[in-house]
């Protein structure tokens, strides 16, 4: 079982991206996919939305899997691995999560061995200037853990914004893939899925 952590700041479009790309992953690879969704609130809104749209979801509400819910997260991964044996588990942490801490938590995983763990970080193109101003250090830290960065909501910004973002992200992650996507229009979702699962 491989794992993909799809992280990004609050409101960066994680749930929408997953809703609009999991179908493609299944269609193109035939892989059995399971979801773990972590919401900060006591009732997981994101998990309920995903279930409504047909995804099988294990919710972890009331906290963050990068800290307080770490042990529950490990239990959940092991349960999914043992009971459903998917080819791929996609983890959507809450938007306040530190992906590095999630990866550190996974070092304590004592279930059957996992395959690859990849981290995808989403960066909101609409709010990019605001986020750089208000959250530059934590945002940079988040980007450091990325295997791939998606610039989201690209249908709502101009080319200059995307160029600025790409330059910023490249200065942090170097040559790792940076893909501008729009979950709303579908722009580059096929490219994202192709890079993610190699299909």
């Amino acid at each position: 079982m491989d794992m993909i952590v799809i992280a990004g700041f609050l409101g960066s479009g994680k749930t929408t991206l997953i809703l609009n790309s999991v179908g493609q992953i299944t269609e193109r690879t035939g892989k059995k996919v399971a979801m773990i969704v972590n919401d900060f609130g006591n009732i997981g809104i994101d998990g309920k939305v995903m279930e409504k749209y047909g995804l099988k979801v294990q919710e972890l509400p009331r906290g963050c899997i990068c800290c307080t819910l770490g042990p529950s997260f490990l239990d959940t991964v092991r349960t999914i691995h043992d009971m459903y044996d998917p080819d791929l588990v996609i983890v959507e942490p809450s938007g306040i999560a530190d992906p590095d801490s999630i990866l550190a938590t996974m070092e304590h995983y004592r279930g059957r061995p996992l395959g690859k763990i990849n981290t995808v970080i989403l960066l909101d193109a609409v709010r990019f200037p605001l986020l750089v101003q208000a959250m530059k250090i934590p945002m940079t830290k988040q980007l450091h853990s990325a295997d791939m960065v998606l610039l989201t909501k690209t249908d709502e910004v101009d080319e200059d914004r995307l160029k600025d973002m790409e330059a910023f992200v490249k200065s942090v992650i170097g040559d790792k893939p940076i893909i501008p996507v729009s979950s709303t229009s579908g722009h580059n979702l096929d490219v994202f899925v192709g890079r993610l699962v190699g299909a």
Partner: protein
Amino acid sequence: MITEDFAAYAARLRIGFPSEIPAEELQGMLESFMSGLAMDCLEAGTRLIGHIKCLVEGGDEIIACSVTDHDARVRCRGRFTAPRSQLDVIVNVLQYGLKKNELVRIVDACGKRSFPSQTSISIEDLEIEEKELIRLS
């Protein structure tokens, strides 16, 4: 990304209307409520809106709306398709700058303002259960 000024509030609003409200009006009220939350937070001093999101379930419908931008624009997935006389709205407000008690006040005020005057609204703090779990006595 938890900083010292991060605060979150999760609540359930049970809203009862005196009679059935058409779907389009319900949609407008819900979007007005969500947009109002964002604007009130910004007016009260929110430094950064993280995510303000809500979920309305019932029947086969599910409507999820969210605000992330400082222009308070509301994006919704799903729309009301039938009239209703009551709504159960779960709302999460995650932001940087205001304390939780201010978020509680804003949700209360905005709820009263966004729905018709004859409407009954009860608000349940969804974090109370969690607090009871760590009570020592």
